[in-house]
């Protein structure tokens, strides 16, 4: 057994020596969410290659992604984290699952407290639990995605501008994220449109429902004009399909309508029905993003989805240069309050809670028309059309974070 | 010695709509060796299964040593002092011969489901099991897995396991089934030795065995007992001869 281990350790350690700054990518590479993890990794590789091609950091050092499979589980993420630490990696990034993110934040905090000379910095590109930048905020954690509350801020802003919407239905997966979405929706709607009636608030077990028809007939019976859902993956595509079959006319305001693979699953059923909030989509076309996006698609046969990954790596590279060091503490201090002139507008990392602020786009799933909807997603023939751009300033929400800096 | 060891009153059993046992009354006094004979399909094994509660009775009443046991579970009946063997060898194949017997003595010795006794420290259980092994002639095979014993050895073990627990009513289902003449003689001697002083009820096909061993015999035909009596009486009973024995007994 020891021999087997040694052989494996030797293999693991046999990474190319030329790489100088490693970033561990801890996300699912096997199991049900492997496709999402794989796609994220490709985004990272693409932008890291670009940064390296333009000279790297610290006057020529290269960045390198080291992928470590966490099988989508918080527990395996800790094993992955340990493995990263053992390889001497000081930067980790992860995105899939707030549960994993919470576990990693805890683990990083504990590790850094117990090993002050080997600290690790955690860059979160997609876990949206508001707690991570509020009650559980940490100096070692930076989030590059808008959190649940920020996105809900945008969704409710859109609904507030639609006088025809009188009744809203909430449906979500029965776990932390679903609960947070529902809570935020209720609070923010009350604030912005007290006249809107919430006619339903359903929670269903995550990943277990095969037929959403009964939920849809319930929504139908409630007379809802709009549905808000934090669902992702199958739970979203099945819901949308069932809504189409049931003849439901209400629109779906979603967090993950354009999530990788999801549009393929609901297909035409989502046309004009699915609205999403993102920091970018393929039909937001400022130069040179169109070109980057097309090149990415050509190379990987996938859509560019995570614009924020580009921001994350660019900001990290700049922070390393500014700190003139790869010491996580110094890099973190440099990241705090950093501004970036991104293609979509001004983007900054708020110092108080390490939450990124960036413009957000509201867009609807529609048939490609060559003009406003130039590119489709997942090869479906449908793409997203921008309805509204919300500047970063308007997504700023107060935080309860009391950051402790070492 | 007032109550009989075993008493069956109007016991009936049907599978679906097919009646198998059609009203059996039987009394076996304590200490008697009683054989049940009858043609194939008469319901002998079914009767055993009813008495040992492997199957529930459809109607009727079964008493063990004066206490009604109808509707009890097999282990409850066993704990009241009745133990049975099986026609098809029915032992614990992956346990050693010794452990087969030891399992049979643990319950009656009060160790039950204990997980605070160390087995090897239970001297009484070990000695009792070893004594049984001596008596059934398997002491030399003590540590062999029961599943790899020869057929005759397994039959002996079957009897050993059945009597080891010290039950005073023993039911043996064809103890000599499938044995050669000499093996069968040994088995009969074994049964005789092992059931000394106990009530024995057995089903048996081999008439030599039955007439040599039994104090009394009951003849079961089509789910009913047509006669009960000593071997001599049964031999002489014209109804039995006609219904079942025919000429063969007269020749024997």
């Amino acid at each position: 057994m020891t021999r087997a281990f040694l052989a494996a350790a030797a293999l693991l350690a046999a990474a190319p020596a030329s790489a100088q700054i490693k970033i561990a990518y801890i996300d699912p590479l096997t199991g049900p969410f492997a496709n999402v993890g794989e796609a994220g990794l490709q985004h990272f590789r693409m932008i890291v290659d670009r940064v390296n091609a333009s000279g790297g950091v610290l006057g020529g050092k290269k960045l390198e992604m080291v992928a470590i499979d966490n099988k989508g589980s918080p527990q395996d993420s800790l094993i992955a984290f340990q493995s990263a630490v053992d390889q001497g990696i000081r930067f980790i990034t992860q995105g899939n699952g707030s549960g994993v993110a919470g576990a990693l934040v805890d683990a990083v905090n504990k590790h850094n407290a117990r090993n002050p000379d080997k600290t690790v910095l955690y860059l979160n590109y997609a876990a949206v639990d508001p707690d991570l930048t509020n009650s559980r905020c940490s100096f070692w954690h930076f989030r590059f995605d808008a959190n649940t509350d920020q996105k809900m801020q945008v969704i409710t802003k859109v609904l507030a501008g639609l006088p025809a919407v009188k009744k809203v239905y909430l449906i979500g997966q029965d776990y932390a994220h679903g609960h947070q979405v529902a809570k935020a929706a209720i609070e923010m709607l009350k604030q912005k449109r007290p006249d809107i009636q919430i006619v339903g608030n359903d929670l269903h077990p995550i990943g277990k429902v095969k037929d959403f028809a009964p939920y849809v007939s319930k929504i139908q019976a409630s007379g809802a004009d709009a549905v808000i859902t934090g669902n992702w993956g199958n739970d979203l595509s099945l819901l949308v399909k069932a809504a189409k079959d049931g003849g439901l006319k209400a629109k779906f305001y979603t967090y993950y309508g354009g999530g990788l693979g999801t549009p393929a699953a609901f297909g035409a059923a989502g046309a004009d029905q699915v609205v999403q909030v993102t920091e970018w989509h393929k039909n937001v076309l400022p130069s040179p993003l169109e070109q980057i996006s097309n090149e990415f698609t050509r190379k990987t046969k996938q859509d560019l989805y995570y614009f924020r990954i580009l921001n994350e790596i660019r900001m990290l590279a700049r922070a390393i240069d500014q700190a003139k060091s790869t010491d996580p503490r110094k890099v973190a201090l440099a990241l705090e309050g950093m501004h970036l002139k991104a293609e979509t507008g001004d983007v900054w990392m708020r110092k108080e809670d390490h939450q990124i602020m960036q413009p957000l786009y509201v867009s609807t799933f529609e048939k490609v028309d060559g003009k406003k909807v130039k590119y489709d997603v997942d090869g479906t023939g449908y793409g997203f059309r921008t309805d509204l751009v919300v500047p970063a300033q308007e997504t700023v929400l107060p935080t309860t974070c009391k950051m402790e800096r070492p | 010695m007032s109550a009989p060891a075993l008493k069956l009153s109007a016991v009936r059993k049907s599978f679906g709509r097919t009646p198998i046992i059609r009203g059996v009354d039987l009394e076996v006094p304590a200490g008697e060796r009683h054989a049940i004979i009858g043609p194939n399909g008469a319901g002998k094994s079914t009767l055993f299964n009813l008495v040992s509660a492997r199957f529930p009775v459809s109607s009727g009443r079964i008493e063990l040593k004066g206490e009604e046991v109808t509707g009890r579970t097999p282990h409850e009946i066993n704990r009241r002092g009745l133990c049975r063997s099986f026609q098809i060898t029915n032992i614990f194949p992956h346990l050693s011969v010794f452990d087969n017997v030891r399992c049979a003595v643990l319950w009656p010795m009060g160790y039950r489901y204990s997980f605070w006794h160390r087995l090897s420290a239970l001297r009484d259980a070990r000695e009792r099991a070893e004594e049984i092994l001596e008596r059934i002639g398997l002491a030399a095979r003590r540590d062999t897995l029961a599943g790899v014993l020869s057929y005759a050895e397994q039959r002996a073990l079957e009897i050993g396991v059945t009597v080891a627990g010290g039950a005073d009513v023993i039911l043996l289902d064809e103890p000599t089934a499938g044995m050669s003449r000499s093996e069968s003689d040994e088995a009969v001697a074994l049964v005789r030795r092992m059931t000394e002083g106990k009530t024995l009820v057995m089903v048996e096909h081999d008439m030599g065995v039955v007439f040599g061993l039994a104090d009394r015999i009951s003849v079961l035909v089509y789910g009913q007992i047509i006669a009960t009596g000593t071997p001599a009486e049964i031999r002489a009973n014209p109804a039995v001869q006609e219904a079942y024995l025919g000429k063969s007994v007269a020749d024997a």
Partner: protein
Amino acid sequence: MSGVPPVLNRRRLLGFGGFLLVIAAAPLVVSHGYALSLFCQIGVMTVFALSYNMLLGQTGLLSFGHAVYFGMGALGTIHALNAVSAGARWFPVTLLPLAGGAAGLLLGLVLGAVTVRRAGTTFAMISLGIGEMVAASSLMFPAVFGGEGGVSGNRVTGQGWFGVTYGPQLQVYYLIAGWAFVATVAMYALTQTPLGRVANAVRDNPERAQFLGYNPQRVRFLMVALGGFFAGIAGGLSALNYEIVTAEALSAHTSGAVLLMAYVGGAGTFYGPILGAAIITVMQVVVAGITKAWPFYFGLFFLVIVLYAPGGVAGVLQLHLRARRAGMLRRLAPAYLAGAGPVALLVGGTVTLVELAYAVVNRVEEGTARLRLPGLVLDSRTAPPWIGAAAAVLVGALLLRVVWKRISGRWAEIHAALAAEGRS
């Protein structure tokens, strides 16, 4: 017919002493942090797999829901830990796995009462359903289960005794190793009690056991409850090791994993599951780090064990030990040597095929589609590697068939010899 045999005979002394030596010395041999966490995992899984084998190997209960006890034990421990951290209760962290054991035992008493009516397939089906139910409801009660993020804790509470704070992984390793040893001894001791033996009897032949006065349902019930206790301890150890417990701990996935460990290791022996826990954990962690195809190899390996070595690794080992005791191991050597080539061809070919397939599926986007082996680069878009690998598989399989006859012939001789010896 003499006195009571001693608790420690030579075999046990050798077995448990060796076990103790291995777990005590492991971190001295390889002290790399990664290895240490691997050892910790193996320690946890050893207890878990052994507790599972109390059901499968010893009582004949095939459970697909054993993780429920593990998860409950982990939850019980992490909540107890948090209560200790918060100062609500005082309790030494060292003994916290007992809280897990209590939780597992309690759940075992409740679920055992419902599930033990029958063994075999029916029990399997019911355990699966109950496992699914508990796992599905875990997300409904976030206060207990912590939702998708699980419940976190911090095992470092207060000053600790004599410098033992359980901060460093090495201290946690010795905590786990100590518990694993104690639990292993306890579970072994259980096999040497009346209940342990009667459980074997019920496994072999529940009906006969019933006719000897034992209530098979009661025996199964007790074994399920005690199995739950030890699974709970394993869960408690895992809670202290990771300092987090998620719903995954009681999921069907974990139940499947422990079944694999016990079966692959060998359910027929006491030590089999320990081997299984080590082998499967190493596969899960190490092989998963090397190739993305690990679940595939995993499934294949398991099927091979089921079809060709139902006694598991320990079963195979046991056979060879018997042959060695009889001094006949040498007779096998030439046949095994002849078999090594075909096996290497078969395995190498299969691995290459699988890796090529995964290369096609997974690496197209990188534009490489190449399989890099030490000193060799295979391009999955060209035919030769495929043809070569397929040929290797075919030739290997054919040769193995031939050699197999020789090997099984040798084994037949050995069995015959052993049987003859047993008779005399």
